[in-house]
């Protein structure tokens, strides 16, 4: 199972030279194995994914955690959607009163986008998910709601080579005090992350920044590390970097965190990096 990070920035793409090292594209991860391709979220990182040889697959599955703009803004620029020979499956959460198609249709329509849903030329199949289990080729996938504004899920992707958990937008701290957890069942997302070989998790803020942004739907880096520790994750990648954080700042923050936290293997997620499980 190969995992390629095409977008690890949160909220809005950044194009500054100051964010070149960690990358400025918003959420998009490619997972490929045994000739199958999963695309996790379709932020602006989709631009890099378009260059991947895997997009020539006859079937592609896009798994959307939620429909905030930084997770779907690349969808309209994803080549296979305009390829009549491609079969594209989109898996994502519906709303309480609106279908997945209806919700995505708000993006695929003027004034936000010039091309309507109905004008996409691929064979498009939509799947509404919540707390769900489904299989795509060699992958057994579990999705479940996590704490974030609006219907949002995380994914646990099991392959014979390992378990990859992806929760890019998650504020579990709203539901518990992570430093005083007596029962892991009360921690949002814990079932998805338990014992994962690799976890890509929201870590948008420093602890200090988080104090002023509680309820915005994102985690602090410190909390994300504690979350990984509690769930006995093998490797954590801190992701959804705040657009205001420069490379220099992220490097300094990482160095500081590594001095403090020695029991959890973690790094900052870097756009373009590839991990093999």
């Amino acid at each position, binding site marked *: 199972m190969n995992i390629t990070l095409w977008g690890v920035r949160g909220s809005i793409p950044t194009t500054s030279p100051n964010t070149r090292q960690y990358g400025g594209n918003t959420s998009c991860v490619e997972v490929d194995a045994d000739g199958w391709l999963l695309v996790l979220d379709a932020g602006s990182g989709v631009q890099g994914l378009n260059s991947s040889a895997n997009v020539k697959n006859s079937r592609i599955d896009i798994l959307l955690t939620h429909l905030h703009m930084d997770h779907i803004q690349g969808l309209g620029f994803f080549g296979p959607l305009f390829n009549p020979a491609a079969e594209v499956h989109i898996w994502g959460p*519906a709303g309480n009163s609106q279908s997945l198609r209806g919700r995505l249709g708000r993006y695929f329509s003027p004034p936000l986008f010039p091309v309507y849903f109905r004008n996409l030329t691929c064979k498009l199949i939509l799947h509404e998910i919540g707390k769900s289990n489904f299989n795509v080729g060699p992958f057994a996938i579990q999705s479940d709601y996590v*704490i974030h504004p609006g219907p949002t899920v995380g994914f646990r992707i099991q392959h014979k080579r390992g378990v990859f958990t992806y929760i890019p937008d998650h504020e579990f701290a709203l*539901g518990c005090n992570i430093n005083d957890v007596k029962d*892991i*069942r009360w921690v949002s*997302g*814990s079932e998805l992350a338990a014992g994962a070989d690799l976890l890509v998790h929201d870590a948008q803020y420093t602890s200090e920044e988080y104090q002023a942004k509680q309820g915005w739907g994102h985690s602090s880096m410190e909390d994300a590390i504690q979350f990984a520790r509690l769930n006995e994750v093998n490797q954590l990648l801190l992701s959804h970097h705040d657009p205001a954080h420069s490379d220099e700042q992220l490097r300094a923050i990482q160095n500081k965190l590594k001095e403090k936290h020695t029991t959890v293997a973690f790094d900052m997620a870097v756009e373009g990096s590839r991990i093999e499980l």
Partner: protein
Amino acid sequence: MAYPIELILSRQLAECLGTPVFLTDTEGNLLFYNEPAEDILGKRYEDTGEMAVGEWGTIFKNKDDAGHPIPPEELPLVKTLMNRLPYHKTFWIESLQGTKERISVTSYPVIGRGATFLGAIAIFWRSSE
């Protein structure tokens, strides 16, 4: 198995409230009760953890104004669990130690996304409140 986020967030809200709150699963098992509710139960959540329906349901007796026992199926929380609707009732509770108190109970179902029934919440309003 982790709890649904609707229950996790309900618990977190209960922990912040000054009124007694009981949170159950769909079977009536007591998943959580907050500090004000500890006073009613005479137990601490930290000591008991979750409690099976048969265990916490016998901690106090429920009686009407005339002192007659109230059948379980007439209690708000039991009705909520059966019908998935909100209920409210005022009655007397008597602890195992014989202490009596008049309370009002408001209960409502926790319905998650996709109309999934996840459990129930009972809020106890004490007569002095």
